[in-house]
């Protein structure tokens, strides 16, 4: 490896950043595709309810529906509360 290559590699490799971002967004969008149409609205409604009490940003609530077996789906609700805004 030449000296030049060494300095290059100390910079954050943008291809690996691209890969990480893609893995997250693609997983998220696949999940969306396989879930019922009402889910985005449900997410907005939940967000509105929580905002009556706590000021949170749009991306602090996520709702997903995971099919765990033929008869059972689990609704997963994730809300992150910022420490200072309690």
């Amino acid at each position, binding site marked *: 490896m030449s000296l030049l290559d060494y300095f*290059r*590699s100390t910079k954050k*490799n*943008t*291809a*690996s950043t*691209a*890969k990480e*971002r*893609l*893995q997250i*967004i*693609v997983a998220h*969008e*696949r999940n969306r*595709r396989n879930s019922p149409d009402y889910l985005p609205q449900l997410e907005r409604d939940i967000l509105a309810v929580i905002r009556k009490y706590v000021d949170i940003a749009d991306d602090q609530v996520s709702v997903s529906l995971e099919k765990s077996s033929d008869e059972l789906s689990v609704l997963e609700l994730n809300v992150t509360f910022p420490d200072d805004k309690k």
Partner: protein
Amino acid sequence: MAKIIVVTSGKGGVGKTTSSAAIGTGIAMRGFKTVIIDFDIGLRNLDLIMGCERRVVYDFVNVINGEANLKQALIKDKRIETLFILPASQTRDKDALSKEGVERILNELAEEFDYIICDSPAGIESGAMMALYFADEAVVVTNPEVSSVRDSDRILGMLSSKSRRAEQGLPGIKEHLLLTRYNPERVVKGEMLSVEDVGEILAIKLLGVIPESQAVLNASNSGQPVILDQDSDAGQAYLDTVARLLGEDVPFRFLNVEKKGLLKRIFGG
């Protein structure tokens, strides 16, 4: 019974038309009777890439509307005996294609042809839908770049839920990944997603990798599908791709940085 293959991507400008022309020509070169249909209504570019732009008399929409029959609209290639092109219409009416109309034409073509290649327009709207709806197999053309990969994943979603095979509960469309405009030098430098990265994210079988190549521009300049330029890297990569599509087991080439010869090292290249 003909096999219907859609060449699709979601994103525009990734190499669908280049690939449709190359793959269709390559399959026809193997002796299969092949037609390439331009589904890009309103734009029409396949004719230019195939070098038959001055021979277009009737188009796909004329045939659907009954203004011409298939015999009148099909353009026979002058190089390959078994190759035909059905050009797109330049109408501005985006909804010129109806599902029933497309189905009728495909059924008629299926009686005569072994392979029907559908060159999809960009987007995920009705035009792209129409091109993929009746497909048996799909070649998902992807560039090693974030927006192209994401759009390819959306198209994969459509293939598995919005196609005829999905709606009728038939076995799913066979999906192939075709990575184009690949630049191994940039991959090594960490500037470009690698074949492995894209394969891992999209999780479908890799059909081919086409390098970024000057030969593609030369080919389109002269109206010769690049697969006919058999000395070129891109031409050879498409030949391998066609072989794999026909079920042959061919090793991948052009994935690594080419070692430069002494002269090139001295004079640059």
